[in-house]
């Protein structure tokens, strides 16, 4: 049969191909291009189902509906198939204390195992796969499930902008799963501190990250105490000093809070401001005892650990005020013009161009400040961005290089046939995807440093990346190696879905190749490296 799909490919390809070849560099984006640009920048790329809907509704009408749904704050329900997969993951329902308890149990079991090994006979073979490994059994599944939640939503949630922003803001307030109990908390951190706030207030997200045990532990603030602090016994008696106990400041969080989370490195602060802010934040810690059992936060402000002196920070004198000092600091930082510019720059860089237009950065910063008391501050800023001419400019179109995260997700999305049940298009397990991200130097929840991952071509465009992506493209396509008819059907689907994103030379090369190579060539093409 002249399949519906081939007809679709022909219908989609012809009109825009003429358009692109004829387009001069300054011509505004056409409706079809705008629709795809929206799917690429405000989501993780088009799926075949999207291109069918665009065709059915017309690109102009489709785009209006898409932008409205993504940005107007109406609830977007998840498809049942996705909901069921997400609901099957039990560790996503554990609270901070229960998760920590799991981590401690793994530690405890590890200690006992070690002891048993030293006490008893030396283990003959340390590589025994059947040997108990508490971390693998108790901790690893929590990280895998968090990763699965993240990746499945990014692949299949219709609330695509939310997924893009969850990645953006997690990265902005990065924590690293490889550091102690942060492993069990990354999912909780994303669920509780990041996701609820991506369209909300920056101050709320800043506070939520500051108080989540994942951040308190990752950047060491949980242990930072007033200089010469000595813990007291229950009845106020001074205990003998424990050499293992913290007895002074740790500047780590205070520095990154200003450098990365708010003001930016050139935002106007000194080493003295770092130290003073660290003093103001002493006592912000978490209570590791899971005795609360009410799903509550583990965050505690412990006045005994707090530096009770007067501080001088960012040109102001801060009188002793317990937890209020840190809260005041977060207020000041969240409303600071340097923070507004820093966030404006980062959003414009992520959504528009590696070197974002300064005028756009300024408008985003202005909107950030104007909306600072709004409960939808960050939604307002995103609206400003998506309404901007810069976002829809031809210079911005297909101008960014995909990160490994985006490359993997967009590949799987473009290969998900529209006529297949959603459940069947979702990967059964995410470990192979996590492996691909590891290999590409972008392990999920695995950025060791607090600046997270960059989203520029300079960070990701390199020979090794192309080698790995071509390999991945071929691996994803192996199933049709020996079946030319199915392979052709698939490459037609990809051609139709990517439409205006492909150059004439890519299409010509693909058309000239044998069927088994066509989809790998499309996914390995220079066009598919960009978004």
């Amino acid at each position, binding site marked *: 049969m002249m399949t519906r799909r081939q007809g679709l490919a022909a219908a989609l390809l012809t009109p825009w191909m003429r358009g692109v070849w004829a387009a001069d560099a300054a011509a505004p984006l056409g409706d079809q291009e705008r629709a795809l640009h929206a799917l690429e920048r405000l989501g993780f790329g088009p799926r075949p189902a999207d291109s069918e809907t665009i065709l059915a509704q017309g690109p102009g009408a489709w785009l209006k509906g898409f932008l409205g749904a993504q940005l107007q704050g109406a609830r977007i329900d998840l498809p049942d198939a996705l909901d069921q997969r997400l609901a099957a993951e039990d560790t996503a329902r554990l609270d901070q204390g229960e998760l920590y308890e799991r981590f401690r149990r793994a530690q405890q079991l590890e200690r006992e195992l070690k002891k048993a090994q030293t006490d008893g006979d030396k283990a003959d073979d340390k590589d025994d796969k059947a040997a108990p490994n508490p971390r693998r059994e108790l901790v690893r599944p929590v990280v895998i499930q968090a990763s699965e939640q993240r990746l499945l939503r990014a692949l299949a949630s219709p609330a695509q902008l939310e997924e893009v922003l969850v990645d953006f803001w997690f990265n902005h307030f990065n924590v690293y799963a490889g550091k102690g109990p942060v492993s069990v908390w990354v999912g909780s951190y994303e669920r509780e501190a990041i996701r609820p706030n991506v369209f909300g207030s920056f101050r709320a997200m800043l506070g939520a990250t500051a108080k989540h045990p994942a951040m308190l532990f990752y950047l060491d603030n949980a242990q930072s105490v007033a200089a010469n602090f000595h813990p007291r016994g229950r009845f106020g008696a001074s205990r003998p000093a424990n050499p293992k106990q913290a007895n*002074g400041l*740790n500047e780590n969080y205070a520095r990154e809070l200003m450098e990365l989370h708010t003001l930016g490195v050139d935002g106007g602060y000194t*080493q003295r401001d770092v130290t003073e802010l660290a003093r103001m934040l002493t006592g912000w810690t978490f209570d590791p005892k899971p005795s609360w059992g009410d799903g509550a936060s583990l965050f505690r402000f412990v006045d005994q650990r707090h530096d009770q002196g007067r501080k001088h920070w960012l040109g102001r004198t801060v009188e002793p005020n317990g937890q209020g000092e840190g809260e005041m600091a977060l207020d000041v930082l969240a409303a600071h013009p340097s923070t507004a510019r820093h966030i404006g720059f980062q959003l414009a860089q992520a959504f528009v161009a590696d070197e974002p237009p300064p005028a756009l950065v300024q408008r985003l910063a202005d909107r950030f400040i104007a909306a600072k008391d709004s409960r939808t501050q960050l939604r307002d800023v995103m609206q400003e961005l998506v309404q901007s001419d810069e976002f829809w400019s031809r210079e911005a179109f297909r101008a960014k290089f995909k990160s490994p995260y985006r490359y993997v997700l967009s590949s799987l999305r473009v290969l998900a046939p529209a006529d297949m049940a959603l459940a069947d298009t979702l990967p059964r397990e995410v470990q192979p995807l996590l492996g691909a991200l590891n290999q590409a130097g972008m392990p999920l929840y695995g950025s060791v*440093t607090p600046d997270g991952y960059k989203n520029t071509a300079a960070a990701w465009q390199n020979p*090794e990346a*192309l080698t*790995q992506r071509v390999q991945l493209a071929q691996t994803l396509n192996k199933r049709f190696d020996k079946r030319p008819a199915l392979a052709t059907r698939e490459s037609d689907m990809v051609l139709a879905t990517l439409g205006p994103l492909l*150059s004439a030379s890519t299409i010509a*090369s693909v058309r000239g190749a044998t069927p088994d190579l066509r989809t790998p060539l499309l996914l390995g093409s*220079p066009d598919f490296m960009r978004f």
Partner: protein
Amino acid sequence: MQRRHLLQLAGWTWLSGATAVARAAAPTQNKLVVVMLRGAVDGLSIVAPYGDPHYAQSRDTIRLAAPGGGDASLLQLDGLFGLNPALSPLLPYWQRGQLGFVHASGSPDPTRSHFDAQDYMESGTPGLKSTGDGWLNRLLQALPGPAAPTRAVNMGATLPRIFSGTAEVASLGLGPKAFAHEAIDDPRMQAALASMYAKDSQLGHTFDAATEGRGEMQRSMAADAATGGDDKTGMDPRIDRGAPSASGFAADAQRLGRLIQRDPHTQLAFTSVGGWDTHINQGGAKGQLAGKLAALGRGLDALAQGLGPALDNTVVVVMSEFGRTVRENGTHGTDHGRGNVMWLLGGPVNGGHVHGEWPGLDTAALADGRDLAVVSDFRSVLANIAQRHLGLGDAQLAQVFPAEHERWSAWRGAALLRTA
């Protein structure tokens, strides 16, 4: 005072620097490997100034014992400095005169931001954010002699700032399968991809670097396998097994060394190792930092073994963006500081010496009253290697480390390299 002043005047542009004779470019086969320790390693725990009375006073739980106190004490380098005992696999290199250090070195820019400081150390222009490329790429362009696809090799999944620029750099992936056949090596696939990438002005050269570099590396390593190169190194084959990061580094480093040994074109290589940001529970002769240093030491030893005879004309530089506070912090770690130690390993190194002027740890001598001062500009060390080891002329060196915007000085300590 006056002598130093004069030297500084003479040295601010190394064109009229200490040698006073303009150098002309001369091609060599010599090699430079740069290993960057990202996260700011505590140099005072690598080459510890046990002879400085303020050292032990400043560090309660993380100080290392003076040499001669058993396994956990420092390995004596000289009357002032000792090497962390976790680095014992490297002591023979010191004893053979193949390992030296430059202490109190680093960047003149006072930033304590990891990210800015790494950026400056990789751009080679501290304080100047507008530099678009990295100094190792500029060095690749300035090297005398003909270009080749594998003249510069980056080991890792991503191309670091230090290698960004217009010259093509080959990529060596991590892990035991780095030289394995991949889809991109398939001739049909490669031909079709080549026709697509040929017309792409931004990605075309990246694609060429991938295919040409892989082709040459695979040819070199096929020769390596044919001549039994694997066995000659005496490395434990089990080294490839097991965990990523620390222990994986030794296997990767050995592979890089073998590649350099086998590929006569390779002159520049870079890789990095992370995880040095020890704000908390840093440990002393045992513990967090010691464990990581032990893995790094094994890795550098493996690199040297992989290089084999090529170690004789290779300089390995190990550097980190800044040092850490002299004083232990409140959580048994160290916060961000300034001066650090650079390591130099290889046959051409004037080893067995801790080079550079030691400013001391007296509070008055510390930067901002808290950090080891930077006495030796990292560029003066690198420039010295670029000229004396890699044969750069004065004009080429000026492209690699531009002197216009900042008055950095030529290396003015004792010779870092043996005279040929």
